[in-house]
Protein backbone atom coordinates (compact mmCIF):
# COMPACT_ATOMS: atom_id res chain seq x y z
CA UNK A 1 0.00 0.00 0.00
CA UNK A 2 1.19 3.52 -0.82
CA UNK A 3 1.17 5.54 2.45
CA UNK A 4 -0.22 8.59 0.64
CA UNK A 5 -3.04 6.66 -1.02
CA UNK A 6 -6.32 8.41 -0.42
CA UNK A 7 -9.27 6.71 1.27
CA UNK A 8 -11.42 6.57 -1.87
CA UNK A 9 -8.58 5.22 -4.02
CA UNK A 10 -7.76 2.49 -1.54
CA UNK A 11 -11.42 1.51 -1.13
CA UNK A 12 -11.83 1.32 -4.92
CA UNK A 13 -8.64 -0.73 -5.36
CA UNK A 14 -9.74 -3.21 -2.69
CA UNK A 15 -13.27 -3.35 -4.12
CA UNK A 16 -11.91 -4.35 -7.52
CA UNK A 17 -9.40 -6.79 -6.06
CA UNK A 18 -12.07 -8.58 -4.02
CA UNK A 19 -14.73 -8.49 -6.75
CA UNK A 20 -13.99 -12.07 -7.81
CA UNK A 21 -14.37 -13.63 -4.38
CA UNK A 22 -16.62 -16.64 -4.72
CA UNK A 23 -17.95 -19.24 -2.29
CA UNK A 24 -15.95 -22.46 -2.11
CA UNK A 25 -16.96 -25.48 -4.20
CA UNK A 26 -19.95 -27.31 -2.76
CA UNK A 27 -21.16 -24.31 -0.74
CA UNK A 28 -24.67 -24.51 -2.23
CA UNK A 29 -24.97 -28.21 -1.41
CA UNK A 30 -23.71 -27.70 2.15
CA UNK A 31 -26.22 -24.92 2.72
CA UNK A 32 -29.08 -26.98 1.28
CA UNK A 33 -28.17 -30.00 3.37
CA UNK A 34 -28.11 -27.85 6.50
CA UNK A 35 -31.28 -25.94 5.65
CA UNK A 36 -33.35 -28.98 4.72
CA UNK A 37 -32.29 -30.69 7.97
CA UNK A 38 -33.89 -27.83 9.90
CA UNK A 39 -36.53 -29.18 12.27
CA UNK A 40 -39.77 -27.36 11.56
CA UNK A 41 -42.39 -26.82 14.23
CA UNK A 42 -45.77 -28.38 13.32
CA UNK A 43 -47.30 -24.97 12.68
CA UNK A 44 -44.53 -24.09 10.25
CA UNK A 45 -45.64 -26.99 8.06
CA UNK A 46 -49.28 -26.02 8.45
CA UNK A 47 -48.76 -22.35 7.59
CA UNK A 48 -48.13 -22.78 3.83
CA UNK A 49 -51.15 -25.12 3.59
CA UNK A 50 -53.28 -22.67 5.56
CA UNK A 51 -52.33 -19.82 3.24
CA UNK A 52 -53.73 -21.77 0.29
CA UNK A 53 -56.90 -23.09 1.94
CA UNK A 54 -57.86 -20.03 4.00
CA UNK A 55 -59.65 -18.13 1.17
CA UNK A 56 -61.75 -21.22 0.30
CA UNK A 57 -62.57 -21.82 3.97
CA UNK A 58 -63.56 -18.17 4.43
CA UNK A 59 -65.89 -18.39 1.39
CA UNK A 60 -67.45 -21.60 2.69
CA UNK A 61 -67.99 -20.01 6.11
CA UNK A 62 -69.68 -16.99 4.50
CA UNK A 63 -71.97 -19.24 2.42
CA UNK A 64 -72.83 -21.33 5.49
CA UNK A 65 -73.65 -18.18 7.45
CA UNK A 66 -75.90 -16.91 4.63
CA UNK A 67 -77.68 -20.28 4.39
CA UNK A 68 -78.22 -20.39 8.16
CA UNK A 69 -79.61 -16.84 8.14
CA UNK A 70 -81.99 -17.72 5.31
CA UNK A 71 -83.16 -20.91 7.01
CA UNK A 72 -83.74 -19.04 10.25
CA UNK A 73 -85.86 -16.42 8.42
CA UNK A 74 -87.97 -19.16 6.80
CA UNK A 75 -88.62 -20.76 10.22
CA UNK A 76 -89.61 -17.39 11.67
CA UNK A 77 -92.04 -16.78 8.81
CA UNK A 78 -93.57 -20.22 9.18
CA UNK A 79 -94.03 -19.81 12.93
CA UNK A 80 -95.45 -16.32 12.53
CA UNK A 81 -98.10 -17.66 10.13
CA UNK A 82 -98.94 -20.48 12.51
CA UNK A 83 -99.43 -18.09 15.46
CA UNK A 84 -101.50 -15.81 13.24
CA UNK A 85 -103.77 -18.74 12.27
CA UNK A 86 -104.11 -19.82 15.90
CA UNK A 87 -105.14 -16.32 16.89
CA UNK A 88 -107.78 -16.22 14.19
CA UNK A 89 -109.07 -19.68 15.23
CA UNK A 90 -109.29 -18.57 18.85
Amino acid at each position, binding site marked *: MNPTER*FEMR*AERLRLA*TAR*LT*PSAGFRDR*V*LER*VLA*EPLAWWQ*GVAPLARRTLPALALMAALAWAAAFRASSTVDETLATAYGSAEVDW
Partner: protein
Amino acid sequence: MPDLEAAVTRVMQGDGSAFGTVVEATSQELVRMAARIVGSLSDAEDVVQEGYIKAYRAMMSGHFDRRSSTKTWLYRIVTRTAVDALRAKARAPVPRDALDDDAATGASPEAHLALAELADWLGVLPPEQRAAIVLHAIEGFSAREAADLLGCSEGAIEQRLVRARATLRAQRGTA
Protein backbone atom coordinates in the same frame (compact mmCIF):
# COMPACT_ATOMS: atom_id res chain seq x y z
CA MET B 1 -30.39 -16.45 -14.12
CA PRO B 2 -32.81 -18.52 -12.03
CA ASP B 3 -36.12 -16.86 -11.20
CA LEU B 4 -35.58 -15.89 -7.59
CA GLU B 5 -39.06 -14.64 -6.77
CA ALA B 6 -40.74 -17.72 -8.29
CA ALA B 7 -38.44 -19.95 -6.23
CA VAL B 8 -39.34 -18.04 -3.06
CA THR B 9 -43.04 -18.52 -3.83
CA ARG B 10 -42.47 -22.26 -4.14
CA VAL B 11 -40.53 -22.40 -0.85
CA MET B 12 -43.33 -20.48 0.87
CA GLN B 13 -45.81 -23.04 -0.46
CA GLY B 14 -43.81 -25.77 1.27
CA ASP B 15 -41.39 -26.88 -1.47
CA GLY B 16 -38.11 -26.77 0.49
CA SER B 17 -36.04 -28.02 -2.45
CA ALA B 18 -36.71 -24.75 -4.33
CA PHE B 19 -34.44 -23.06 -1.78
CA GLY B 20 -31.51 -24.34 -3.88
CA THR B 21 -32.47 -21.81 -6.56
CA VAL B 22 -32.47 -19.03 -3.94
CA VAL B 23 -28.94 -20.01 -2.86
CA GLU B 24 -27.75 -20.28 -6.46
CA ALA B 25 -29.08 -16.84 -7.37
CA THR B 26 -27.72 -14.96 -4.35
CA SER B 27 -24.80 -16.76 -2.70
CA GLN B 28 -21.99 -15.19 -4.72
CA GLU B 29 -22.96 -11.59 -3.92
CA LEU B 30 -23.82 -12.37 -0.31
CA VAL B 31 -20.60 -14.27 0.41
CA ARG B 32 -18.51 -11.51 -1.20
CA MET B 33 -20.23 -8.80 0.84
CA ALA B 34 -19.99 -10.82 4.07
CA ALA B 35 -16.30 -11.53 3.40
CA ARG B 36 -15.61 -7.82 3.01
CA ILE B 37 -17.32 -7.16 6.36
CA VAL B 38 -15.88 -10.02 8.42
CA GLY B 39 -12.52 -10.14 6.60
CA SER B 40 -12.40 -13.87 5.89
CA LEU B 41 -14.02 -16.05 3.25
CA SER B 42 -14.58 -19.05 5.51
CA ASP B 43 -16.18 -16.85 8.21
CA ALA B 44 -18.27 -15.24 5.48
CA GLU B 45 -19.57 -18.64 4.37
CA ASP B 46 -20.58 -19.39 7.97
CA VAL B 47 -22.34 -16.03 8.21
CA VAL B 48 -24.20 -16.50 4.92
CA GLN B 49 -25.19 -20.06 5.83
CA GLU B 50 -26.62 -18.81 9.12
CA GLY B 51 -28.44 -16.08 7.20
CA TYR B 52 -29.94 -18.62 4.81
CA ILE B 53 -31.19 -20.72 7.72
CA LYS B 54 -32.92 -17.65 9.22
CA ALA B 55 -34.40 -16.82 5.82
CA TYR B 56 -35.64 -20.39 5.27
CA ARG B 57 -37.33 -20.45 8.68
CA ALA B 58 -39.00 -17.11 7.97
CA MET B 59 -40.22 -18.29 4.56
CA MET B 60 -41.60 -21.58 5.87
CA SER B 61 -43.38 -19.95 8.79
CA GLY B 62 -44.88 -17.17 6.66
CA HIS B 63 -42.92 -14.41 8.42
CA PHE B 64 -41.43 -13.09 5.16
CA ASP B 65 -44.07 -10.54 4.11
CA ARG B 66 -42.36 -9.76 0.74
CA ARG B 67 -42.70 -6.01 1.23
CA SER B 68 -39.10 -5.67 0.06
CA SER B 69 -37.48 -7.71 -2.70
CA THR B 70 -36.02 -11.06 -1.69
CA LYS B 71 -32.52 -9.87 -2.51
CA THR B 72 -32.79 -6.76 -0.30
CA TRP B 73 -34.25 -8.86 2.49
CA LEU B 74 -31.41 -11.41 2.25
CA TYR B 75 -28.82 -8.60 2.21
CA ARG B 76 -30.42 -7.24 5.39
CA ILE B 77 -30.29 -10.61 7.15
CA VAL B 78 -26.70 -11.34 6.12
CA THR B 79 -25.42 -7.83 6.96
CA ARG B 80 -26.84 -8.01 10.46
CA THR B 81 -25.60 -11.56 10.95
CA ALA B 82 -22.11 -10.42 9.87
CA VAL B 83 -22.15 -7.57 12.40
CA ASP B 84 -23.23 -10.03 15.11
CA ALA B 85 -20.35 -12.33 14.09
CA LEU B 86 -17.88 -9.44 14.35
CA ARG B 87 -19.21 -8.56 17.81
CA ALA B 88 -18.90 -12.19 18.93
CA LYS B 89 -15.36 -12.32 17.58
CA ALA B 90 -14.48 -9.12 19.44
CA ARG B 91 -15.67 -10.75 22.67
CA ALA B 92 -13.77 -14.01 22.02
CA PRO B 93 -10.93 -13.36 19.52
CA VAL B 94 -9.85 -16.28 17.35
CA PRO B 95 -6.08 -16.91 17.01
CA ARG B 96 -4.74 -15.70 13.65
CA ASP B 97 -3.63 -19.24 12.62
CA ALA B 98 -7.22 -20.44 12.81
CA LEU B 99 -8.17 -17.93 10.09
CA ASP B 100 -5.80 -19.30 7.48
CA ASP B 101 -8.20 -21.98 6.21
CA ASP B 102 -9.31 -19.43 3.58
CA ALA B 103 -6.58 -20.87 1.35
CA ALA B 104 -8.81 -23.94 0.90
CA THR B 105 -11.53 -21.87 -0.77
CA GLY B 106 -11.82 -21.23 -4.50
CA ALA B 107 -10.80 -17.56 -4.84
CA SER B 108 -7.52 -16.41 -6.37
CA PRO B 109 -4.44 -15.68 -4.19
CA GLU B 110 -4.70 -11.99 -5.21
CA ALA B 111 -8.26 -11.80 -3.96
CA HIS B 112 -7.20 -13.43 -0.67
CA LEU B 113 -4.36 -10.93 -0.28
CA ALA B 114 -6.72 -8.05 -0.98
CA LEU B 115 -9.24 -9.43 1.52
CA ALA B 116 -6.50 -9.73 4.16
CA GLU B 117 -5.44 -6.14 3.45
CA LEU B 118 -9.05 -4.98 3.77
CA ALA B 119 -9.41 -6.87 7.06
CA ASP B 120 -6.20 -5.30 8.42
CA TRP B 121 -7.21 -1.84 7.25
CA LEU B 122 -10.69 -1.95 8.77
CA GLY B 123 -9.70 -4.11 11.75
CA VAL B 124 -9.30 -1.07 14.00
CA LEU B 125 -12.98 -0.12 13.60
CA PRO B 126 -15.87 -1.26 15.79
CA PRO B 127 -18.23 -3.72 13.99
CA GLU B 128 -20.96 -1.15 13.20
CA GLN B 129 -18.51 1.35 11.67
CA ARG B 130 -16.76 -1.39 9.73
CA ALA B 131 -20.05 -2.60 8.25
CA ALA B 132 -21.07 0.97 7.39
CA ILE B 133 -17.76 1.62 5.58
CA VAL B 134 -17.96 -1.65 3.63
CA LEU B 135 -21.58 -1.09 2.58
CA HIS B 136 -21.04 2.52 1.56
CA ALA B 137 -17.45 2.77 0.29
CA ILE B 138 -16.91 -0.76 -1.07
CA GLU B 139 -20.36 -2.13 -1.94
CA GLY B 140 -21.58 1.25 -3.20
CA PHE B 141 -24.84 1.52 -1.21
CA SER B 142 -26.13 4.99 -0.39
CA ALA B 143 -26.26 6.04 3.27
CA ARG B 144 -30.02 5.50 3.18
CA GLU B 145 -29.71 1.97 1.76
CA ALA B 146 -26.96 1.12 4.27
CA ALA B 147 -29.20 2.41 7.07
CA ASP B 148 -32.00 0.13 5.88
CA LEU B 149 -29.67 -2.87 5.75
CA LEU B 150 -28.23 -2.24 9.21
CA GLY B 151 -31.56 -1.26 10.80
CA CYS B 152 -30.59 2.23 11.94
CA SER B 153 -31.21 5.83 10.89
CA GLU B 154 -29.48 7.53 7.99
CA GLY B 155 -28.00 10.00 10.48
CA ALA B 156 -26.46 7.16 12.47
CA ILE B 157 -24.82 5.84 9.29
CA GLU B 158 -23.43 9.29 8.41
CA GLN B 159 -22.03 9.55 11.92
CA ARG B 160 -20.43 6.10 11.72
CA LEU B 161 -18.88 6.95 8.36
CA VAL B 162 -17.38 10.19 9.67
CA ARG B 163 -15.97 8.48 12.75
CA ALA B 164 -14.63 5.54 10.77
CA ARG B 165 -12.85 7.80 8.27
CA ALA B 166 -11.36 9.83 11.14
CA THR B 167 -10.07 6.65 12.80
CA LEU B 168 -8.58 5.39 9.52
CA ARG B 169 -6.96 8.77 8.85
CA ALA B 170 -5.46 8.83 12.34
CA GLN B 171 -4.21 5.29 11.88
CA ARG B 172 -2.52 6.23 8.61
CA GLY B 173 -0.92 9.18 10.38
CA THR B 174 0.59 6.92 13.02
CA ALA B 175 1.66 4.20 10.53
